[in-house]
């Protein structure tokens, strides 16, 4: 499964594609089974350069009933920096976040579909 992510142009915050708009919550993100649908969403997102910057697809997997990104780096983006648990999305501390943090399956770099170049 894939998800589409980017950073908000005005705030820089990590955002996830949710059926035509961007959400700041990973849990709200739309998951694509088919690559074609994912690519179409990416193409659409790239036509909105005033909203989000550097959109790219990531691989996600079901981990005991919770979806998590496969790549370690994407987990950090979806949570926040590990040295300051009070900052970033992880600060909300909801069930999704807890499941996320508890996720121990090993990350793989295959989750990094397209390297971001900033």
């Amino acid at each position: 499964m894939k998800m589409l992510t980017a950073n908000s142009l005005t705030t820089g915050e990590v955002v996830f594609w949710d059926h035509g708009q961007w959400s700041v919550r990973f849990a709200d993100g739309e998951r694509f089974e088919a690559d074609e649908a994912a690519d179409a969403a990416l193409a659409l997102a790239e036509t909105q350069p005033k909203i989000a910057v550097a959109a790219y697809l990531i691989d996600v997997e079901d981990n005991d009933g919770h979806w998590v990104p496969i790549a370690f780096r994407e987990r950090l983006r979806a949570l926040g920096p590990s040295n300051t648990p009070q900052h970033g999305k992880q600060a909300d501390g909801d069930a999704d976040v807890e499941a996320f943090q508890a996720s121990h399956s090993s990350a793989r770099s295959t989750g990094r579909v397209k390297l971001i170049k900033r």
Partner: protein
Amino acid sequence: MYRYDSLDKEMLTDRSNEFRHQAARRLSGEITEDQFKPLRLMNGLYLQLHAYMLRIAIPFGTLNTKQLRRLAWVAKTYDKGYGHFTTRTNLQLHWIKLRDAPDILDALAEVDLHAIQTSGNCIRNITADPYAGATADEIDDPRVWVEAMRQWSTNHPEYSYLPRKFKIAVTAAEKDRAAIRSYDVGLHLRRTRDGELSFEVMVGGGQGRTPYLAKTIREHLPAGRLLSYLDAVLRVYNRQSRRDNIHKQRIKILVATLGVEEFTRQVEAEWALIEGADIDLPDTELARIRAAFMPCAFDPQPASSPVFEAAKADPEFARFTRRNVHPHKVPGYAIVDISLKVPGETPGDASSEQMDLVADLADAYSQGEVRINYTQNLVLPHVKLADVPAIYAALKPAGLATANMDLITDIIACPGLDYCTLANARAIPVAQSIAKRFADPERAEQIGDLKINISGCINACGHHHLGAIGILGVDKKGEEYYQLSLGGSGGDDAELAKILGPAMSGPAIPDAIETLVETYIVHRKDGERFLDTVRRTGLQPFKEAVYASAD
């Protein structure tokens, strides 16, 4: 201390207005991200993992207290109340919004601060000895020359779109405290036999994928000709460097490809044709800058202070004086290091409250001046010995009195994958786990000087090539792995660290460091630092110990 005059201030205002205009054009869709990116980078604004990051320049690592308080205020108002001091003596704020950036630059410009050329393929903020103007072994104040270069390099019409970034550092003391041989251009100021100031010019140092130590291309450059000579170096670089492969566009690659003799020949040929009088600052301007850097008069003090000596009865204070207090050029004064390396905390981070406190102390005790060391610590440069106990007492409850300068817990680390888009692995948690393991200050002092440098990727912002122990984060099939190297130094005994063996996982690192330390203690001879022992014995005993115990 140097202050900007109305002309410098108008430059900052114009710059800030220009950026406000550019950001508005980006937000309205008039220019693309591809076009905007180099513009925001030249104003220190990166897009990182969680937000924008603003890298604020601290020219020559010197701040007055008004500036430090403004940084604290910006961090509190526009960020999350803390900032990260870097190995290039800049301050990074990691939670910035693009829409706030123009206001932040305005707020900084009001106190003569800016983010000009802290990123991008241009001449970056120039660094110098953190003890400049205070240390006894100084030939001249290096900041005079850094300020001359700041002016010359700001908004340079010809050198704002270089093949890659370009970093310069200056040392004007015998001891190199600015790691100049790891720079694109390293400058070492000395006095010739006839008393003239002269630079040894070294070119082509750098870390990253292909690390090199800079090579000397001129032993004696008359100091007053510095800018025109640099112009020649930059012109040869701008015209001759490759532009087809981002990994081969630093000047170190050009110097290595041409060979240092041919590169030197080209620079000298170019310099001979350059109209030096148009570029080199007139003596009057140099004199004006020099006068502005003169410290206030120092009250005459007795060479030793009974208050200071008596306070050493407290063993913790005594340790603080051994590690963090250094001789000043004026008798009765000292240079005091403030550690931003509390074991278990993020190396180089300071909260707004801590910045405000340091500003208060600098006003009370250090001529209102604060320095940033590339080791990611702060410095009070002009302190009366008699005031050190009071400073220590104020620092301690704020978590700023850790007595660990140059010890195993004084770890240099980049932000790594916790923040940075370029990183392959986290650096901060590794630093935290090592520092916690060696948190016992007595043990750390028994181990003695030992620099650990951690970078989250090959770009080497954590200077892992220059660590007695260097740690490089790598991505091994999506997992964080760390490669150890030994024997590096950025100082007078500069050398690049050598790789110890295969990379290992993050949790294995503290044990591996423990093994390295034990091996050193077994092999060390009287007075040898870790680095000396490694260089004497070579890597073999360390390699055997680490990888034997790992099996």
